[in-house]
């Protein structure tokens, strides 16, 4: 080994000169400002492009501003909120959205789970088949909506044709409110079941093999094996999938807008479509802002529950 006795002092004096050089740069470079300094650009961008516009619209929601009028808006206090909260149409739209979200997310959980069971093993061509199953959720809503509308067409659609092979009659799915909701739910669930699959799959592969081996030796029935070994590993992931998909499906717009136009009547018009109509077609800009805040509130509640579960899961390791 070479002589190791000489270098300590040099390193120390080098450090001293760093500490001496002053000015703004050094001030910014101080360790205690490291965090704020690095975070600042992100927070500024988000504030300018997201938070500030939100505050702006929050302000608007207290006026009677309409984007297509030249009249100077006047302060209306909580009038818009009162209007939105007492508007039966708003509650109807929330109800419709709730039904669609409930049905779609349930289907997603079921199909996602089944798909995950299928892909939990290793087998030849697994990566390629997985790639095929994952494709739907990468598509844009517009293309999915347009094609599913064609599939549902009683005369030119595949669904009606396939069912007609057995019944001899064209199948008219979109004629009733229930059928129309089903049509949207099917399209949405088809798109997003792979998402749930990914989450459940992560849970399934994290189950240590030795647990299954132990269960095998203890002669546990498949159901018991699932309930006592598999399910605990995917429980929290299923809950997360449920919440994440609920938040996302809550925003459902294109599928409904393009497949049924919100019809028949208004039976598939979601709250997102209604907000769009209020703001962009009816020019009730302030009222739309108030409704937007109602939606925001729901999203914040759901998001915080989601993060609570994420954190709890992380703490459990």
């Amino acid at each position, binding site marked *: 080994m070479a002589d190791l006795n000489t270098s300590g002092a040099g390193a120390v004096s080098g450090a001293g000169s760093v500490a001496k050089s002053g000015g703004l740069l050094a001030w910014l470079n101080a360790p205690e400002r490291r*965090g704020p300094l690095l975070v600042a650009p*992100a927070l500024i961008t988000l504030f300018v492009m997201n938070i500030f516009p939100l505050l702006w619209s929050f302000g608007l929601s207290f006026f009677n501003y309409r984007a297509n009028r030249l009249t100077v808006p006047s302060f209306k206090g909580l009038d818009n909120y009162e209007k939105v909260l007492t508007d039966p149409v708003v509650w109807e739209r929330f109800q419709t959205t709730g039904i669609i979200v409930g049905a779609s997310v349930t289907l997603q959980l079921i199909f996602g789970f089944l798909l995950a069971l299928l892909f939990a093993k290793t*087998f030849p061509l697994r990566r390629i088949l997985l790639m095929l199953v994952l*494709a739907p959720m990468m598509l844009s809503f517009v293309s999915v909506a347009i094609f599913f509308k064609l599939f549902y067409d009683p005369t030119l659609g595949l669904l009606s044709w396939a069912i007609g092979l057995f019944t001899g009659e064209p199948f008219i799915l979109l004629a009733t409110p229930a059928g129309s909701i089903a049509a949207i739910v099917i399209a949405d669930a*088809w798109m997003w079941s792979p998402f749930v699959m990914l989450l459940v799959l992560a849970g399934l592969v994290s189950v240590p093999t030795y647990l299954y081996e132990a269960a095998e030796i203890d002669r546990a029935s498949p159901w018991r094996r699932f309930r006592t070994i598999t399910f605990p590993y995917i429980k929290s992931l299923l809950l997360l999938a449920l919440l994440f998909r609920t938040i996302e499906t809550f925003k459902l*717009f294109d599928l409904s807008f393009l497949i049924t136009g919100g019809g028949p009547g208004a039976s598939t018009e979601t709250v997102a479509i209604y907000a769009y109509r209020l703001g962009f077609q009816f020019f009730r800009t302030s009222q739309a802002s108030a409704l*937007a805040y109602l939606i925001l509130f729901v999203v914040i509640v759901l998001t*915080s529950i989601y993060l609570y579960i994420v*954190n709890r899961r992380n703490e459990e390791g």
Partner: protein
Amino acid sequence: MAYRKAAFRKPGQAGWLYSLVTGVIALIYFFPVLWMILTAFKTRSDALAIPPKLFFTPTLDNFKSVFFRDTQAGDAVATGFVQYFVNSAFIGGSSVILALIIGTLAAYAFSRYPLKGNDTYMFIILTTRMLPPIVVIIPIFLMFRVTGLSGSYIGIILLYTAFNLPFSIWMMKSFFDDLNPEIEDSARLDGSNDWKVFFRICLPQVLAGLAATAVFALILTWNEFLFALLLTGSDTRTVPVAMANTIGGEIGVDWGLLSAIVSLFLIPVFIVTFVLQKQLLRGVTFGTIRK
């Protein structure tokens, strides 16, 4: 005793028979997408034919008409798709790079130098991304009106940067959280300052994560329609807006053209879902769930 051997396969492994069964199920699931791809090679009559045509004479006209169309005078002219494509790539690319730079720095800070109320910041950041776009479109719209950013590259790039930021921060934080902090300590002892630790030690370790984040952000941005429609001009218009054109003009939906655009988009998507399968979970949950 060959069958005995098969029965003693390690748990979690399966053979070709299983592949076959799964393959059939996967194909059924994939069928709507497959139908879109087939439609891209069909004439309009074949596309809408009932009984449906599984076998037909394929045509490349739809792909041609993505890029060229015939004028009234009968000349073939560019559709502007290349311009849309370049716009999508430029706007998407710039905003993703910007968001990655800003977001990675922030994520590193959130991971290594937690601020007071770190979790609250992370929560607010996530919330801004969970919002229905309809909630923010009105105010953003009004803001663009005041700042005059509407229709400019800078405006839409800034907007998409903000749009991608929460995603980038959450993703990159999850990757930084996964790193072994001992390695950074070690580099400090070995005489590296914080910047060198970040660039020489941390960043190289999360390169795969950085790539995954970029790809997912690009896909999200690429599919974004509402902001693109409302806030771009003729010079800055992007692919989804071009796609909307195929769903109603003088002929309703141009099935072949729409399918051709979707099919072209699927090529990179397939590559990504094939290559980045390990990062997919993180990608689709904004990095909130790692494994």
